[in-house]
């Protein structure tokens, strides 16, 4: 397991050092804050999809869930003038419901995860557009909005979800705190509770796990619920971070980032493998690549390409590293 993290960690450090050498401004506090912030936002989603990937499933709907959650939150807060905490509650409940629906369709109606969540991708995107008539909308009410009465409270929320906390001269973005808490929770859940154990078990051998008296269907549903829930939290974080939600665009393609980060971070799409730390580091690597491209001044046309190559080489390199280590161990034994 530690070999996994080693590979991706080396990659992180390498890109970091190279960028810093090319453009020293990369290292200044403001840029680091931004890097931490964006990494945290994307890492939350990646962490969520890791649960699903560990069970051997996949979730393509994450981006659309992020978009829909951000839309619903904005409608509740801005247009409906709902009590802010209830609004948060409703949006999270929505994300839980979506995850539950995925899980039920996958386990009970026996539709493949790829298909269920692909349809989810289409449907939630459509819902978001339809609910807002495709108007951009933000969570923070302006004068004249029903939610304006709650402005102070909502600004409080805004600080909670997208503020910065000064630690000496360094301003720590609050999403990092969310990520930290979710990380710890996810790590404990996966490594120290029976449910986490069951997720790994069923990802490796579903039948065998079922024969051990474990309700594998329920565990799978749990994984999808957690995934959507994390996407929901990410949706709220994005809404407050961007202060503006474009129903047709917000979150588009994010599922690919999330899955890429999970895979690069050591989750196997065959199921049964994955670590929280690896996924978080991988999410940071992806954001770092974007930041580096801007800092170094490479044409944005090449962004995607560089990202794709790094992921591919990262995965191949990781495989290679693992094999070499295994071969060395075998040689030592023999």
């Amino acid at each position, binding site marked *: 397991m530690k070999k996994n993290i080693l590979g991706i960690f080396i990659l992180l450090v390498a890109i970091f050092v190279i960028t810093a050498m090319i453009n020293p401004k990369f290292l200044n506090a403001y840029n680091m804050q931004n890097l931490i912030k964006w990494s945290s936002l994307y890492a939350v989603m990646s962490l969520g999809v890791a649960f699903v990937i560990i069970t051997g499933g996949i979730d393509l709907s994450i981006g659309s869930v992020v978009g829909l959650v951000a839309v619903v939150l904005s409608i509740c807060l801005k247009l409906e003038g709902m009590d802010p905490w209830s609004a948060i509650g409703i949006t999270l409940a929505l994300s839980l419901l979506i995850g539950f629906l995925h899980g039920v369709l996958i386990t009970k109606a026996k539709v493949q995860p790829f298909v269920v969540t692909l349809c989810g991708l289409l449907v939630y995107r459509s819902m978001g557009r339809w609910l807002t008539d495709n108007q951009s909308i933000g969570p923070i009410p302006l004068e004249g909005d029903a939610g304006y009465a709650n402005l102070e409270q909502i600004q409080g929320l805004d600080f909670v979800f997208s503020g910065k906390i000064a630690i000496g001269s360094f301003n720590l973005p609050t999403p990092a705190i969310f990520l930290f808490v979710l990380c710890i929770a996810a790590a404990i859940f996966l490594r120290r509770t*029976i449910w986490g154990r*069951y997720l790994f078990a069923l990802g490796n051998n579903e039948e065998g*796990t079922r*024969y051990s*008296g*474990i309700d594998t269907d329920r565990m799978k549903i749990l994984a999808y619920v957690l995934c959507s829930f994390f996407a929901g939290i990410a949706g709220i974080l994005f809404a407050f971070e961007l202060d503006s939600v474009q129903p047709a665009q917000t979150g588009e393609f994010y599922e690919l980032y999330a899955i890429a980060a999970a895979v690069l971070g050591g989750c196997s799409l065959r199921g049964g493998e994955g670590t929280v730390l690896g996924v978080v580091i991988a999410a940071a690597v992806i954001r770092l690549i974007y930041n580096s491209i801007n800092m170094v001044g490479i044409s944005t046309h090449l962004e995607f390409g560089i990202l794709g190559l790094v992921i591919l080489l990262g995965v191949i390199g990781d495989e290679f590293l693992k094999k070499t280590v295994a071969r060395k161990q075998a040689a030592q034994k023999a």
Partner: protein
Amino acid sequence: MGAVSSPYLEVKELRKSFPGVLALKGVSLSLAEGEVLALIGENGAGKSTLMKILAGVQPADEGDFQVKGEAVSFRSVNDAMDKGIALIHQELNLCGNLDLASNVFLGREPTRGGLIDEPTMRREARKYLDLVGLDLPVETIAGSLPIGKQQLVEIAKALSSNARVLIMDEPTSSLSQKETETLFGVVKDLREKGISVIYISHRLGEVIELADRVTVFRDGENAGDLAGDEINHNNMVKLMVGRDLSEFYDRKVHESGSIVLNVDQVCTPAFPASSLSLEVKSGEIVGIAGLVGAGRTELLQTIFGVTPALAGTIEICGELLALDNPRTAIKAGIALAPEDRKQHGLVLPMSVRENTSLPSLKRDANRGWLNDAAEAKVTNTAVKSMKIKTPTNEQIARFLSGGNQQKIVLGKWLAMKPKLLMLDEPTRGIDIGAKREIYKLMEKLAGEGMAILFVSSEMEEILGMADRAYVMHEGTIAGELDRDQLSEESIMHLATGNLVAA
């Protein structure tokens, strides 16, 4: 013993059908406390199906099911566990990514404060692993163990559930002699403690040694019961197949010809440090004996090109070959009926026809076009000469019994007319009737001059079939035994690493 007390567990007139198959046509079975009941029957008789029902894996369609006189119907494995019933499955069901302790306690992890109590779990797991004679650390990842050791973990897992009824579905099919003996000790121990065991096996010797009573199934129905002194080889066979099967190993002495296979100083990836050499002549049946994990499968796979050799040379009929994948091996006239029939031998969701013709498609094809006539001929020949029991050639292989599946594997290779046929555990999990047919076939092929190399963990089989045998121990050939040197003692001697041949 449990003669007077009412049965602990009883089923009557149980029925179960699958799409297209009526697996149980109303079977009955009873089990007393502290009784070891053997359940035997040909492949597909419905033994595993009934056991899965008893263990709550799948529901019955109809019928009575009582535990301690109380009617039950299990909806999940947990329901069965609550009633003290645990099943060791015929197929392995460990999670390859978890360690041994986690596997033993999967679904029943001890917790403290909501979190898994690892120290307690490891301590407890140690106890049960010791019980089945597995002295590996509890932190070992299950997937890295050979099948036999995994089977022991499964048994430890079932024991740890403190069940009142323990069902073992062919537990010894991948165990070595020594491990089997340990298991027998465990079963006898359980009987002492008043725990009931249902024991399913195709090895009648084991049944005779262990069973208090025997229930026989045939085609999803009860074929009869045997108790005490009635339990002997002939009676069981009669009930299972409905007639006598005398002369099990119908051996003749073979004229051996030229050398077909010559393996010289070959190193396999599993044991890179040791090399082995052996040879097989045409018309000869050569056995490879050894304990589980001795590297026999690995050796056959290396000859077949699945896992290329690290060093050494392999010659077929005097021709030096670079065997780096099965294609070259097949071209050279080698065939392998692999140990893992479902994974490596067959494409389960495809039909008998498609499976049988798979290796010969290319040979018979006309520039890549399928040759229907040739394909039909290959299939018909195989079905007829192998006596494959299938409703049509289009039947899906998955729905056939183990014996018939094995016959398909043999049939597809015979169509290739190999010079060397390698069989890895050719009769594992196969009923007595089919077993006998496979032995006959091996005889016939050898008689026609084919070279046959087979691996078996069944002592009887080696003794009964081999003209000559190699015994393997930890990746090396510990010794070679001629027909007249073959005995249970001499094989065990070599297999356990005692290099002084008896």
